[in-house]
């Protein structure tokens, strides 16, 4: 399949990216890993006249803790996340998610920024970032602005980014002393998008849950925050009964549609099961870290 014609731009700095966006406000697209955009262009579902490749813009692949947050440059590849000991030890939920995105070859190119900016409800990072309370940083000639991941994700394939803004960084609050995260996904086969997936973060004060974050993948028009389940967990111990009820509330928050991956009831049941398992895993990881 051959995409339509376009011009390829490889700017060497963010200001050059903005110039290109400014010159072609209606028909330019940013190219990150290209693992979503290029397939869309091959199907001619996207026909940008200008492709602006971010790969040669310096300093967009930061992966480090700074000022109380994990800072991820938008161009950090899935493969780099998957291999990072820092991510594995301190942000296991992000490690889990990066390891189940597509397949190892796609992960060598796909970026975390692209995963969020694409805003496909089937993408794996948005739900995990909801659970972790991440913030995203958008930059334009008008300046830098930081917004919560909740505000960033607007609708199916729609984010709060303005036409002249580039997603430059993702900030994930550093985990509290006794906390753990997990991301569990059910897929039909390797490389497929989720039937459903659940990202969870739990923080503890003694034996009691002091904070809970739960995000759901591919069971609604965008990644969903299971707010009622989160609120229910706070102040409780993660007993079997509590986990079961939180899982039920999370399944209620899901808003799936029937498709080739299964009917609505099945997907809700998967959300319930995965939420319970992810909560137990996150609690176990929190204990192991303490």
């Amino acid at each position: 399949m051959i995409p339509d014609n376009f011009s390829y731009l490889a700017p060497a700095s963010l200001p050059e990216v903005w110039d290109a966006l400014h010159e072609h406000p209606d028909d330019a697209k940013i190219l990150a890993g290209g693992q979503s955009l290029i397939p869309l262009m091959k199907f001619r579902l996207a026909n940008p006249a200008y492709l602006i490749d971010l790969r040669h813009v310096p300093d967009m692949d930061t992966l480090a803790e700074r000022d109380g947050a994990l800072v991820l440059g938008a161009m950090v590849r899935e493969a780099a996340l998957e291999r990072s000991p820092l991510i594995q030890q301190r942000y296991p939920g992000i490690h889990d998610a990066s390891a189940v995105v597509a397949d190892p070859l796609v992960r060598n190119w796909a970026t975390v920024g692209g995963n969020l900016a694409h805003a496909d409800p089937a993408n794996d990072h948005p739900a995990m970032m909801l659970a972790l309370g991440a913030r995203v940083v958008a930059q334009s000639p008008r300046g830098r602005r930081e917004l919560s991941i909740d505000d960033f994700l607007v609708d199916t394939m729609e984010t709060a980014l303005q036409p002249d803004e580039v997603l430059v960084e993702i900030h994930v609050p550093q985990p509290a002393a006794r906390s753990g995260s997990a991301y569990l996904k059910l897929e039909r086969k390797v490389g497929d998008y989720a039937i459903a997936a659940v990202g969870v973060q739990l923080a503890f004060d003694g034996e009691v849950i002091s904070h809970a974050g739960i995000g759901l993948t591919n069971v609604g028009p965008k990644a969903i925050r299971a707010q009622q389940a989160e609120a229910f967990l706070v102040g409780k111990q993660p007993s079997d009964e509590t986990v079961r009820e939180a899982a039920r509330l999370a399944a209620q928050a899901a808003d799936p549609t029937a498709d080739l991956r299964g009917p609505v009831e099945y997907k809700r049941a998967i959300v319930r099961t995965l939420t319970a398992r992810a909560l137990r895993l996150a609690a176990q990881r929190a204990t192991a870290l303490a």
Partner: protein
Amino acid sequence: MTQHVKMTLNGQPIEADIEPRLLLVHFIREVANLTGTHIGCDTTSCGACTVQINGVPSKSCTLFAVQMDGEEIRTVEGMEQNGALHPLQEGFYQEHGLQCGFCTPGMLMTAEAFLREHPAPTDDEIRQAIAGNLCRCTGYVNIVKAIQHAAKHIREEQAAPVATAEVTR
């Protein structure tokens, strides 16, 4: 509409004026005339088009050749050295790691990069590593064996560098 690109392909410089929409796999097969790299699904699923870009295995049906300006590309044709098969090619031959052979070039590209980082892998690690390369013939069992065969050979070669250097020259 065309753009000039210059890259290294299997150690040889290559340059051409191409349309930006030319996929890397088409550049390799139709401009450089190296047809060892295959096109299977054309939808980023099968890995038959896998090549290495600066050593990183990548699906060449999902990259544009213009993105490769200044980069180093390696294809299956770059594996054999001075008429001697690469240990992985030898492994696929000895262990019957292919039937129709359509997936093999991609498998070799992925496996070569993997063994550089994992010289003594478990079977499970191999299976994870080749998860982006589909094979419709073998059932994968012999592919895993072939990669283990090569891993063992490469380890032995590195343990006795002088002796093998003489043999392969």
